[in-house]
């Protein structure tokens, strides 16, 4: 998929989308589908942004950054016909939490099996587990309404806005009081406190809580981390994990499918063409200027880059109101995670006494105890990477043989915490990278003693590297922390949560807008639909 030209065919478009990540491409596809003349410009030669697959080691396809598909909106798959364009999602069915010298804890799609697994640690938790899934399933029906619409604007007196708040209110009203109370707790509590209201057993609580901290600079005991637990239950009612999956051929295939869909509707895509700045005339965006100096005219410019990069680098402070700049400056990016991708000669052994490897096909969480994960955070708060980090490991080659040569494997470890701002300064990351990678492999080695013998190639990515490669400010994978004060009508900043910006003709469509990060596609879609609805393009 590196066959995109680096020069556009024309010098004038209805809309130019800056950035060829999945949100930019989704946005472009919707605009093109509506008949607009659209150009996508991507700085890297490869499309996908943080949703990219690359053959970093010969024969091994790494999903370099984003490694699982969680909440990609099903209606986008339908509306853009992404399956016809090659998208295929392979469900992940297990969650495995290894424990040294033990079988560890596996949660299966099969509820009876999961019950037996949990019962080894706490019969009470095992018995209660399905009820938790049910409660989460009920709540996620409400949350879906939030994700799939633009954020309400509480200060507005526009009847449409009031109607929307009323509608949300109605959805909220449809929940019973018990669920509304749970919703309040979920939004404000820490993952650990929230789970402790239900469960007591060590491997279960950290294994579930781990999902609450991914991509954030918070610990599992930090208030506000409970909310993400819900994402695991979206679309599910029985606690199985079918909502999560691998994109066949790597996460980049999602972007490729989106690109093909966009092209099928007539959008044009150029890659290897970075944007130097947004051209602004009389307070209005009129096009972009590429790094090579070429100028492209466009009635509408849409940036899928993060707010910091969009406004402080491509637009420039002097074009913007002071308040807005101040708000963008205090918008928190805070990269907190790194990535270690390994090419493996063979499957390492998890020394867990389990008869086969079926439990390794899903996600493997290194979070043996609540304290372990919290300690990893405590270390990072003061500018160190965690020596014993929380890891979220997947071995996609077990489900998708296309990503590695026969018999060989790809292991991808998402690592937390790796603060962007290390004590020595972010630019010292290149000197720390090796030690960081070793800390990760040491951690894996505690559970897989033979991991080192299996490694034939590796890629270690610090948040500094993530920023360097993808452009994500501070390497934050969600284009900004998903904390309450940066969500909904406050994302990215107050008064500008509706994809518009203070510059007329300049719009936003990245994860830095509502509903936020993750490979969801929702910001791209909602931005496009808002623009089309409001005559913005």
């Amino acid at each position: 998929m590196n066959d995109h030209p680096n020069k556009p065919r024309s010098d004038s478009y209805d809309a130019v989308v800056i950035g060829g990540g999945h949100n930019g491409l989704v946005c472009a596809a919707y605009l093109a589908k509506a008949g607009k003349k659209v150009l996508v410009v991507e700085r890297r030669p490869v499309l996908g942004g943080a949703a990219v697959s690359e053959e970093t080691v010969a024969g091994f396809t790494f999903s370099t950054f984003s490694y699982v598909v969680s909440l990609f909106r099903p209606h986008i798959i339908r509306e853009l016909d992404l399956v016809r364009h090659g998208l295929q999602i392979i469900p992940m069915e297990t969650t495995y939490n290894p424990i040294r010298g033990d079988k560890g804890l596996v949660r299966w799609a099969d509820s009876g099996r999961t019950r037996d697994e949990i019962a080894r640690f706490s019969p009470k938790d095992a018995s209660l587990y399905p009820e938790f899934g049910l409660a989460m399933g009920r709540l996620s029906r409400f949350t879906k309404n939030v994700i799939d619409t633009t954020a309400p604007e509480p200060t507005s007196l526009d009847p449409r806005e009031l109607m929307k708040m009323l509608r949300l209110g109605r959805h909220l009203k449809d929940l019973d009081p018990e669920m509304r109370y749970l919703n309040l707790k979920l939004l404000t509590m820490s993952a650990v406190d929230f789970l402790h209201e239900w469960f007591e057993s060590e491997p279960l609580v950290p294994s579930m809580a781990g999902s609450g901290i991914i991509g954030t600079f918070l610990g599992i005991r930090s208030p506000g981390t409970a909310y993400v637990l819900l994402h695991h239950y979206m679309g599910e009612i029985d606690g199985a994990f079918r909502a999560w999956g691998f994109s066949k051929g790597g996460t980049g295939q999602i972007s490729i499918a989106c690109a093909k869909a966009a092209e099928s509707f007539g959008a044009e895509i150029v890659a290897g063409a970075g944007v130097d700045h947004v051209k602004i005339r009389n307070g209005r965006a009129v096009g972009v200027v590429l790094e090579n100096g070429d100028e492209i005219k466009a009635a509408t410019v849409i940036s899928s880059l993060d707010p910091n990069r969009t406004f402080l680098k491509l637009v420039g402070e002097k074009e913007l109101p002071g308040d807005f700049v101040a708000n963008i400056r205090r918008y928190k990016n805070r990269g907190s995670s790194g990535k270690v991708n390994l090419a493996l000669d063979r499957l390492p052994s998890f020394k867990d006494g389990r008869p086969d490897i079926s439990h390794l096909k899903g996600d493997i969480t290194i979070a043996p105890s609540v304290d372990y994960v919290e300690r990893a955070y405590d270390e990072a708060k003061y500018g160190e990477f965690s020596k014993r980090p929380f890891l979220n490991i997947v071995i996609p080659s077990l489900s998708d043989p296309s990503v590695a040569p026969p018999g060989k494997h790809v292991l991808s470890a998402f690592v937390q915490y790796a603060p962007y701002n290390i004590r020595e300064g972010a630019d010292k990351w290149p000197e720390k990278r090796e030690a960081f990678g070793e800390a990760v492999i040491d951690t894996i080695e505690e559970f897989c003693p033979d991991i080192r013998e299996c490694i034939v190639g590796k890629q270690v990515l610090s948040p500094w590297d993530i920023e360097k490669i993808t452009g994500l400010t501070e390497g934050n994978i969600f284009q900004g922390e998903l904390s309450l004060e940066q969500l909904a009508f406050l994302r990215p900043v107050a008064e500008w949560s509706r994809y518009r910006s203070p510059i007329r003709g300049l719009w936003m469509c990245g994860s830095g807008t509502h509903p936020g990060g993750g490979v969801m596609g929702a910001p791209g879609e909602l931005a496009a639909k808002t623009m089309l609805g409001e005559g913005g393009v």
Partner: protein
Amino acid sequence: MATDVIVIGGGVNGLTAACYLAKAGREVTLLCEEDSIGGLCATHEFHPGFTSPGVLSDTSMFREWIVKDLSLEEQGLVSEGLSKVAVLGKERRFVLSGDVSQTAEEIGRVSQADAVRYREFAAFYERIRPPVERLLNNVPPNIVDPGTGDLLPLLRYGLALRRLGKKDMLEVLRLAPMTVYDWLDEWFECDELKAALALPAVTESYAGPWSPGTNANLLIRRVTSGRGFKGGATALVEALVSAARGFGVRFETSTGARAIEPGEGVETAAGDILSAKTIVAAFGPKKVFLELMRPHELSHRLEQRIVNFRTRGLCSQLLLAVDGTVSLPGGADRALIADDLDAIEKAFDPVKYGALPDSPCLEVYIPSQQNPGFAPEGKTSVSVLLHYTPYELLGGWTEEAREELTRKVIRILEERIPELRGAVVGAQLLTPRDIEERYGVAGGQIYEGEHALDQLLVRPSPECAMYETPFEGLFLCSGGSFPGGGLTGAPGALASRAVLNRKSRY
């Protein structure tokens, strides 16, 4: 014995509720052991001749409208002027007070920029005070199961918020879930200043400055802080007691409550039955439901919610008998020792694992400055709140562990308050466990329930959030109810409102 209302628990909230109810013409009996009058600010002698002011001593958040309603000034209660807190940094020292210009001037000695920012900071809170105050000084709207009666107040809050204008309204919505760390970092550069503003707010919960939601606590503090009283909490309690007597409250101080029979009355520890249709409990919800009632009386849901109400005490109190006088900078009677926000966070880190911090952050209070009788002539009684200490210490709260902690704290104090050097003649340490035992607060949590966002908005549980309980005639009025713990009097006053409104509600 029969009466209209029994108030159990004689802390500030119990006394306030008793006053309001008696003032409204109810026949009120307050049931509380003599030495527990004052609740968390009940005094006791911790060293011969030296008196402890109790764990809660800051009266600056006691509501002025309650003082007015109950005419407490007639009982001799006098506003003290603006309370002063000395910030004792390693090098930098300054005094914060309720007077903005004075404080800004003080801050100007360490940072000119921060002095300017502080004025804006104070002005911001002043601007947003009305809607927040309105929320905190009324029976909370039921946000979990709003009935038609709740929609109007909710709408009014919404309108009050809107009246702030777009920018401030969005700012209020943005700031509440934030961490104090980020919020204060947006405003100030001086580490000691940030730490001093943050410390009182973060220690109300199981949280450090890095914890989201802590900024709501700061907001509440900033908006509700007033002047405080001469003579401190002791004077406040005395005024409330004499006001109560004036309103005709009968004090039953020979015994405490052993069991509650809603609608019937209270069984005392002495084994007597006190009958009353209405019981107002000024004890934390855990004590009320889980100790004073039998499990089968509770619904499964209520029981689980109360069990899950988080009451993890993380604060210890060290009482020191000091030979000699101690004076703090600027004539303050309080001092804070926390050098920067990270120091507070680092003091919080170890307690999560059951350990003690290397350098606890300290809130020092010298009651004998306000209450000369608290220490013999020429000597000083000092109360220090230690943040943070775990309820359950790894290896247990052994004599050794207590001594080591005491020594550690005295060492820090001697460094910052030179007059203390070699002058400590007696010390008593109250760990969260001791506080639980002495004051009857679950988990030793001195706010009777952590001030986390969910526990502030719905406190302690949806069915009890508006002071009523699922049990006819049983009401809650401790700090475990809205708007939370501390010497505010608000839960007591608002609960009495709920009691008096009950007829119209049914």
